[in-house]
């Protein structure tokens, strides 16, 4: 780990406009600092800034940036009204990591691309302009949607996939004031500038994640991986679906493990609406989802895997 200056903030305002790296749970930042993938000169510890409350927000919920993943998943309101979020959080990492990891930190979690995580390779995300060694390397876990020649990394998290399906928003304090970004717009695709994972600007701090009013229907987070726990997703599907008189009345979906961001595609839900569930319908939805999918060889299997996982989840959500 490179040497750095450490300071503690007592209120969020100290972080606004700061050029320091913000240290919350540390489970990702310190990991990457040990690898010297991250080499900040200044680190600002924001754990004591009080952003760790979960509050009602009209019919919705406002979850403070520093609420731990565990606390969020254990919250009675989350479990009752947004169970998809609890499921997704609990599918990720380990209990120890979830106790330390925060909501905002988890949104900012960086890719697990092994070329990104070692400093002796070419990686446009770590070192803009250097190239991408993953393209012809070990890329079993890499993206099949929205990737570019610059970067085929995936966003590795689970929580944000659920938040995308739930239409959550990210509340950000910046030197010019407070702004909100739809979670679906928060993470970026790599085209052009692979080193930027999301739309956060220097000097900004995430203060909260807000959930809109609960949506009725079955909520399912399905994560596929060869190890049954403590492993990143090969593919994941977040689904909220409501049936009415044997037809699909409402559906919200997001996908993990496929792209540089939690993947959403409005055409998939549109194809489902008003339809009777059937394997053929699920296939049609998958066709839309995967129409632009591109494998790199080792990760070609993600295309049929995404198709079949979507079918499993839709079947599960629509069965009597």
């Amino acid at each position, binding site marked *: 780990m490179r040497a750095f200056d*450490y300071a503690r903030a007592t209120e969020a305002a100290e972080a606004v406009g700061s050029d320091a790296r913000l240290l919350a749970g*540390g489970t990702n930042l310190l990991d990457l600092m040990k690898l010297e993938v991250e080499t900040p000169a200044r680190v600002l510890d924001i754990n004591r800034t009080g952003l760790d409350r979960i509050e009602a927000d009209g019919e919705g919920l406002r979850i403070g940036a520093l609420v731990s993943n565990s606390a969020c*998943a254990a919250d009675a309101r989350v479990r009752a009204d947004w*169970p998809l979020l609890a499921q997704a959080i*609990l599918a990720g990492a380990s209990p120890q*990591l979830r106790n330390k990891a925060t909501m905002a930190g988890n949104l900012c979690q960086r890719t697990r691309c092994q070329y990104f995580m070692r400093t002796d390779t070419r990686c446009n995300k770590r070192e803009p302009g250097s190239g991408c060694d993953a393209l012809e390397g070990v890329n079993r876990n890499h993206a099949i949607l929205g990737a570019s020649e610059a970067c085929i990394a995936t966003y590795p998290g689970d929580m944000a996939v659920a938040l995308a399906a739930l239409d959550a928003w990210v509340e950000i304090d910046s030197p010019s004031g407070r702004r909100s970004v739809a979670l679906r717009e928060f993470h970026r695709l790599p085209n052009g500038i692979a080193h930027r994972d999301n739309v956060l600007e220097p000097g900004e701090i995430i203060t909260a994640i807000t959930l809109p009013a609960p949506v009725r229907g079955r909520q399912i987070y399905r994560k596929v991986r060869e190890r049954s726990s*403590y492993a990143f997703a090969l593919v994941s599907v977040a689904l909220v679906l409501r049936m009415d008189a044997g037809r699909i009345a409402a559906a919200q979906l997001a996908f993990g493990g496929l792209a540089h961001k939690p993947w959403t595609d409005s055409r998939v839900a549109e194809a489902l609406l008003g339809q009777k569930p059937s394997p053929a319908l699920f296939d049609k939805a998958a066709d839309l989802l995967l129409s632009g999918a591109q494998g790199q060889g080792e990760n070609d299997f993600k295309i049929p895997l995404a198709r079949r996982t979507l079918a499993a989840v839709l079947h599960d959500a629509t069965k009597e």
Partner: protein
Amino acid sequence: MSENCAARLTVNGSPEDFLGDPRRSLLDFLRLDLKLTGTKKGCDHGQCGACTVLVNGQRINSCLSLAVMHDGDEITTIEGLGPASALSELQRAFVTHDGFQCGYCTPGQICSAKAMLDELAAGWPSAVTKDLTSGPIPSDEELSERMSGNLCRCGAYPNIIDAIRAVMQAEEPA
């Protein structure tokens, strides 16, 4: 840079001052500065759980935390649960049920199990909890999912579950 930074922690009930390089992990502070080597370094990246300690009662990976971040925190390590001459019930159960072989992951497993039992008692859900709104039923699958943040290469997992189960049964009201 890397100037000395300070924090005051309580470790196993004793006040301990940290003064030093901010890069020092909580794990290395315990092992190198306080000589509390019961907490193990297995990967140094939050991937194995051998370094699990309790911070204010909650289990965390001490390798992915800086000592300086823990000003005011109460830390409990395996040494705080019981020495060999006066083992806690959980530690004794690990011996009885052979919940370890080489012993290297063991302090982390035991600290993790202790906090896990508290999480269960508090009704926290896990990835295998069927009904998120009511409390978890402590099936074997619940216990093994909740202990999956602690790797054991010797493969003592079934015995670890047996040891935890034995303690749970002993603590049930008659």
